[in-house]
């Protein structure tokens, strides 16, 4: 039976690179699969939709109707990979709601593979949030993400050794990819120099995501 991956990119901390990872992942999945959907759950400042207006839509979990619209799509085994950019304001309420309605169990039953990409900071809030995810969502694939821009090479001892690494980019390249009009896929397609730092950086990220996809598939076997 075909299974559908759902990636939840999250952190209880602001400005740790959630939208960057969501953009990269959504564009990678779009390259592999033409039916990718991304959801932007940022209460104050939705931004994924600015980068990916064709792939992303905004979602809200503030009220029951919003929760129904989002979660009923997330548990659909429709073959379309989904990426959720979960803003830090919504972290607690999303996972509380997901736990309460039995999201992980229902997803498993319906053939939906849930991967939670957790981007930690080095603070206690991140540590507590990681503990909560391990406690409540142990059935899902938990993927701690080492955004070198945030952790700067110091991996907190409460995290496992194998993290999904997002390498540090020089400031000028970071500014370049932060433009709303920038597309990773377009850059890969049109870049004349495959040895450039940005090209290699995007390629590395995509290779990590492919490995994650393989890991999700193998976990089922």
């Amino acid at each position, binding site marked *: 039976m075909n299974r559908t991956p759902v990636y939840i990119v999250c952190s209880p901390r602001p400005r740790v690179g959630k939208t960057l990872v969501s953009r990269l992942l959504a564009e990678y999945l779009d390259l592999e699969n033409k039916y990718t959907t991304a959801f932007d759950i940022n209460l104050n400042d939705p931004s994924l939709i600015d980068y990916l207006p064709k792939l992303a839509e905004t979602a809200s979990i503030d009220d*029951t*109707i919003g*929760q*129904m619209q989002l*979660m*009923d799509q997330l*548990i659909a085994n429709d073959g379309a990979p989904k990426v959720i950019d979960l803003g830090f304001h919504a972290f607690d309420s999303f996972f509380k*709601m997901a736990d*309460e*309605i*039995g*999201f992980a169990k*229902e997803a498993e039953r319906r053939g939906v593979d849930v991967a939670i990409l957790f981007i930690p900071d080095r603070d206690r809030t991140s540590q507590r949030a990681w503990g909560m995810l391990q406690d409540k969502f142990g059935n899902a694939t938990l993927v701690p993400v080492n955004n070198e821009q945030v952790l700067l090479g110091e991996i907190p001892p409460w995290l496992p050794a194998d993290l999904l690494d997002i390498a540090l980019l020089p400031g000028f390249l970071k500014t370049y990819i932060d433009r709303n009009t920038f597309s990773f896929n377009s850059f890969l397609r049109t870049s004349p120099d495959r040895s450039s730092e940005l090209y290699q950086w995007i390629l590395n990220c995509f290779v990590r995501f492919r490995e994650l996809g393989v890991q999700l598939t193998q976990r089922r076997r």
Partner: protein
Amino acid sequence: MATKPAVIVVGADKGGVGKTTVSRTVLDYFSANNVPTRAFDTEAPRGTLKRFHPTITEIVDVTSTPDQMKIFDTLNTAKASVTVIDVRAGLLSPTLAALRDIGFLDAARSGQITFAVFHILGPSIASLDEIAETANFMSGAKYFLVKNFINNTSFFEWDQATYNSYFHKIKDATELTIPKLNEMAYEQVEVASVPFLKFVANKGQRDESANYSFVLRGYVRHWLGNVWGEFDRIKLTDIVGKDKGGVPTKTTE
């Protein structure tokens, strides 16, 4: 040895406090625990409980002698060992008085029948006066005071000290709490007119598959689990004669 018949009265003198909702959770609980149960809905002629549990519910007028006979004269002969009576608003005290008059309360006191009352408390101070009134009939019965928060976030207008002063007057009363259920989930179950358990299982009235929202089903399952946790805590199945060895009641199939 045949199981002793058990009668559970769910009532309050005030209306709109969730009597039928609690009755529905009790019926679902017994269904999940394979306890044969029948129900009587005293909201004649229109019965809300019957709408949700039509196959096991009969509408009766509990103040009429023929219907009293229908309920109480059949306790030992009915296939179901448990009888749940959803008493409509304003009839709890008259019903208990009628039970006293026909000797039912004496039979409960002497151990021939298991008798339990779920007294649903409303937010007003009048509910506290009801406790004192109802308590007069409770000798020989298991008496449960149910704080029903299902539709309200902040519920009781009386303070805890006042409540305690009433609560402690009653010997052996046990307190139960029904937590709040998401409003939209509650409404959808109402619209679907199915037992909570069928809603959770995504089934219609005739067991056909339905298309209820996963989110709403999740909220109902979580809530029902908490309600049943309360019923497990008071050992409701033990009370009606079925020992399930302390195993928690699950809200999933």
